[in-house]
């Protein structure tokens, strides 16, 4: 079965082609084409995973391009890491396909939507299976393109169109770093293969500075894709896309590709302490930065988007503090519960007739039972409540940061965890409890939308067990097999209690303010007016970028263009003027007076001789 792993991305590709050709005929039935393809992919992914657990890494490559003396291959590879990723991607993609059948059924272009989803799933699975970094880069760009198409799916909304463009261009900045890193790596090792890069580092063939530079360039790519500070600005805007897309691309899979990239290149990062420290700090800053914005936002999807940024920061923090397994474990658990939360949000938005402002919700608990219960499970999981998935992975991250010994990072991690619990339950209490504040009576949705919620809800409960102490950290054993990623830290009972208390503290504070309402909602914002304004405006990052990058670019373009016009029209007009005046000037000279001709001839002759002498160098 593992030899047939290449079929996993091919099924969605077939779905894409079929829908491209027959989409207009199939219309709403397009959903079933997509669902079937992804179901097959999922079955294959499960089979491949089981075979991989007992077996070995499988690689299949053929020669692709010859570059001077080195040959670039293409093919596919099944390692423990990507076997896990295959499950995550196919499963989330499958449930999103199922969910979208009803969520999108009012849309005339539902077949187009499903064809884009198919193309995205193909690209993302291709990215995961890539055996070398150049092939990864190609799929990396393709998922970016799919993200562009899907964010801009409702293109008639101006916000959606500009969000799509912003998402693409911002991540491009990171991609440039990645491309430079790839080429520097190629220059240093003469190969794009992961194994060759690791071998070269181990043998000390690359200077330490170069290792750091390459690692940081690659990390820049991850910063763009995984929406890390300061390139995070695109992700909240990307919420203009349909909600299932947010669940699939902007929560579970594509944005995690940056984390995956760092994971794949991990032995390389381990060789450079500087690079690891930067990864850790960028992750930590992103985690707390995004969490603070999520504290005050009112849009259900944007809160989740900032939460995603923050959690991705957590994963980077783990990777930066040598917590290889912790970071990737959190990637997996987060994929399930964040997809759950987004689909839950989608179900809510659909239920309340396309409202997204949590101030216009409330009291959904009694009206949308399945959605509410599963959403609560997701919220508890992300807050890190025992024994849900988030608890285990977050605790691993704490352990890794603590073992790293930087108290500043540890403090940030704890504060962020507190904020996470707080903003998630702020959202939960405001949207699901109290009185309904909207104008259309909400209703629960049917099976196609609730089934995915139930599946993901179960996973949000049990997914953490795969790396819990009582299963003997099974995932760790699987992921670290055969690669040198160093000793993985584990927390003890004490750390588990601390992390649990922090989560409960956050939830309690949210309950006091938004559930029980003992403290007014406006109390804290009123107390810290400037800080609240800063957070409401997302630290003015968008405005800053407009002033620093966008306007100067357009300004320089306009200025250069003006100079261009001035010179070219200037030359042509000057020629016209000169020709005309010389013409009329010469006309005056032709006065019929022989003397004048003579003078002109002599002056002309002297000029020619002088010019000749000058060029010969006699005067110079």
């Amino acid at each position, binding site marked *: 079965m593992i030899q047939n792993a290449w079929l996993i991305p091919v099924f969605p590709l077939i779905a894409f082609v079929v829908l491209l050709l027959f989409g207009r005929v199939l219309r709403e039935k397009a959903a079933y084409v997509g669902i079937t393809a992804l179901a097959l992919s999922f079955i294959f992914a499960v089979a491949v995973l089981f075979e991989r657990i007992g077996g070995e890494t499988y690689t299949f490559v053929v*020669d*692709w*391009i*010859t*570059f*001077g003396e080195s040959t670039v291959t293409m093919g596919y590879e099944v390692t423990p890491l990507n076997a896990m990723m295959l499950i995550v991607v196919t499963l989330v993609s499958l449930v999103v396909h199922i969910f979208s059948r009803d969520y999108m059924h009012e849309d005339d272009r539902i077949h187009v939507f499903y064809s884009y989803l198919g193309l995205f799933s193909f690209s993302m699975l291709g990215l995961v299976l890539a055996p070398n970094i150049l092939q990864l*880069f*190609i799929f990396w*760009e*393709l998922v970016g*393109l799919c993200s562009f198409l899907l964010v*801009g799916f409702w*293109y*008639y909304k101006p916000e959606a*169109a500009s969000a799509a*463009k912003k998402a*693409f*261009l911002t991540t*491009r*900045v990171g991609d*440039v770093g990645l*491309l*430079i890193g790839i*080429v*520097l790596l*190629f*220059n240093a090792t003469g190969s794009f293969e992961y194994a060759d890069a690791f071998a070269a580092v181990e043998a000390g063939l690359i200077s330490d500075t170069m290792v750091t530079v390459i690692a940081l360039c690659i990390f820049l790519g991850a910063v763009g894709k995984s929406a890390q500070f300061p390139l995070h600005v695109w992700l909240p805007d990307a919420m203009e896309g349909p909600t299932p897309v947010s669940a699939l691309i902007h929560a579970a899979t594509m944005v995690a590709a940056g984390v995956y990239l760092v994971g794949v290149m991990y032995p390389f990062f381990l060789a450079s302490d500087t690079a690891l420290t930067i990864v850790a700090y960028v992750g930590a800053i992103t985690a707390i930065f995004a969490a603070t914005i999520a504290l005050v936002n009112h849009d259900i999807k944007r809160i989740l988007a900032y939460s995603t940024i923050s959690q991705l920061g957590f994963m980077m923090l783990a990777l930066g503090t040598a917590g290889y397994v912790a970071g990737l474990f959190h990637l997996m658990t987060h994929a399930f519960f964040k997809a759950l939360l987004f689909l839950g949000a989608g179900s809510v938005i659909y239920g309340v007739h396309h409202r997204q402002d949590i101030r216009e919700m409330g009291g959904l608990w009694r009206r949308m039972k399945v959605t509410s219960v599963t959403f609560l499970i997701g919220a508890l999981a992300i807050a890190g409540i025992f024994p849900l998935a988030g608890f285990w992975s977050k605790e691993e991250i704490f352990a890794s940061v603590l073992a790293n010994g930087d108290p500043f990072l540890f403090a940030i991690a704890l504060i962020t965890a507190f904020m996470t619990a707080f903003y998630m339950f702020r959202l939960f209490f405001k949207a699901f409890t109290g009185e309904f504040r909207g104008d259309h009576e909400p209703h629960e949705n049917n099976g196609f939308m609730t089934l995915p919620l139930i599946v993901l809800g179960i996973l949000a409960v049990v997914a953490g067990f795969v790396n819990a102490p009582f299963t003997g950290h099974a995932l760790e054993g699987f992921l670290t097999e055969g690669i040198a990623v160093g000793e993985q830290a584990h927390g003890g009972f004490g750390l588990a209690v601390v992390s649990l208390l922090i989560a409960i503290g956050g939830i309690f504070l949210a309950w006091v303010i938004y559930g029980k309402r003992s403290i007014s909602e406006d109390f804290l914002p009123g107390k810290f007016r400037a800080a609240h304004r800063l957070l409401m405006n997302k630290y003015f990052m968008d405005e800053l970028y407009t002033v620093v990058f966008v306007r100067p*670019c*357009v300004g*320089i*373009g*306009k200025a*250069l*263009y003006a100079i*261009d016009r001035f*010179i*070219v029209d200037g*030359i*042509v007009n000057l*020629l016209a003027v000169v020709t005309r005046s010389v013409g009329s000037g010469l006309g005056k000279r032709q006065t019929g007076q022989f003397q004048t001709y003579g003078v002109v001839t002599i002056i002309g002759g002297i000029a020619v001789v002088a010019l000749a002498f000058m060029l010969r160098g006699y005067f110079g």
Partner: protein
Amino acid sequence: MSAYNANWSLMTPEIVLMILALVIFTLDFMTGMSRNKPFLGRLSILSLLATTVLVAVFNRETGQIGDMFVVDGFAMVLKIVILLGVAGVIAISMYYVDRHRDVYQGEYYSLLLFATLGAMLMVSSADLITLFVGLELLSISAYCLAGFKKYNGKSTEAAIKYVVLGGTASAFILYGMSFVYGLTGTTSLVDINEAVPTLFADYPYIMTMAIMFMIAGFGFKISVVPFHMWAPDVYEGAPTPVTSFLSVVSKIAGFGIVLRVFFVGFESVYDEWAFIFALLAAITMIVGNMIAIVQRKVKRLMAFSGVAQAGYLLVPVATMVSLDMTMSMITFYAVAYLLMTLGAFAIITLVTEDTEDDALTSFSGLYQRAPYLAIAMTIFLLSLAGLPITAGFFGKFYIFVGAIQAEMLWLAVIMIFTSIVSFFYYFGIMKQMFMRDPKPNDDQTLSVPKPVSAVVTISLVGTIGFGLLANVLTNYFNNLQWFF
């Protein structure tokens, strides 16, 4: 060697093309003034294809005619690129002249063929005089073509600007060449190459001046900054198929002589001029991409995009590690550039003609009006911007790797950053196609004439094919003997 015992068979393709061009010219006389003459277009395409076959047959072996005319790998590949490019241009033109009765058909096609002949001569010459004759044959035909819509003010203005500025550029080239001739006493590039190292030691200023003059003149022909300013006006005013000719064929042929002159004639003093090209490449990429952002008309946008593309093509000239690699990079990118630009221009011609408007908004709702064209255009634009899995991506990547290997990191970084800027304006067109509704008074579906759709399809297949299987070309290029 005299004219009698030279190996004239090397020139077979050129001679045949000239005869065919004259035949078409004569046929035009014989068939009256004002008739629509589609057969002339078909005949021209056939002539070009026949010549391509002859090139492939007769130019496989290297050879020369008295140091004046050489046939080598470089000449053969560029000739094929040029001939196929012109065939594409003619296919687009057939649609265009059908709609414009003021474009007189016979002269139009024969002028294009004569221009092609000039371009073939350019890339095959090893002598400054032959080279200049080829260049002028191309340029003068192109001046006429730019002003072919006689009764249209913009077209006439374009032609006048092109003639005046093009003439100035030719003067610069000749002036530079005259210095070289004065110092070396020869016009043969091979002899010049032997003589220049000592001359550079003895007369550094005059030699530098001569090189600068030639770079300025050639820079005009390939539209690199700061000699690019004619391009937007001429591109906008000229009939759209002629614009595609200027931006594809004329530019590739221009690069042909730059490479021939500098890599054959001045190769021995590479270090003296490489840096000038590096600077030109840098400002060309920056200025071209920056100005393109603020363009609102599609042909002007393509003009600046073409300027930026010329900048990318100059990067390998300035970052040579080995001659074979450099030539392989440039030629690969030239092929990619031909495919994506020609495909894009086929669609631009169709759309701007159909809507009778050359603003970017003429593309609005193209996806609804003609989905195939919109998808094809997207792929051409993505290729121009350098996104996988297109030939444009691979070409840029190849050049980028070369620049890093030559340790010109600053140039590589400029290249990659300006290419992000380029996404900005290419997206402008994509946004119109996919994210706007068609204008109310345009037809709901756009019918695509066969020749145009053939050009689009072939370009599309090539753009994706060489992106996926770049190996086919690079392997061939790696085994080619570039210069005689």
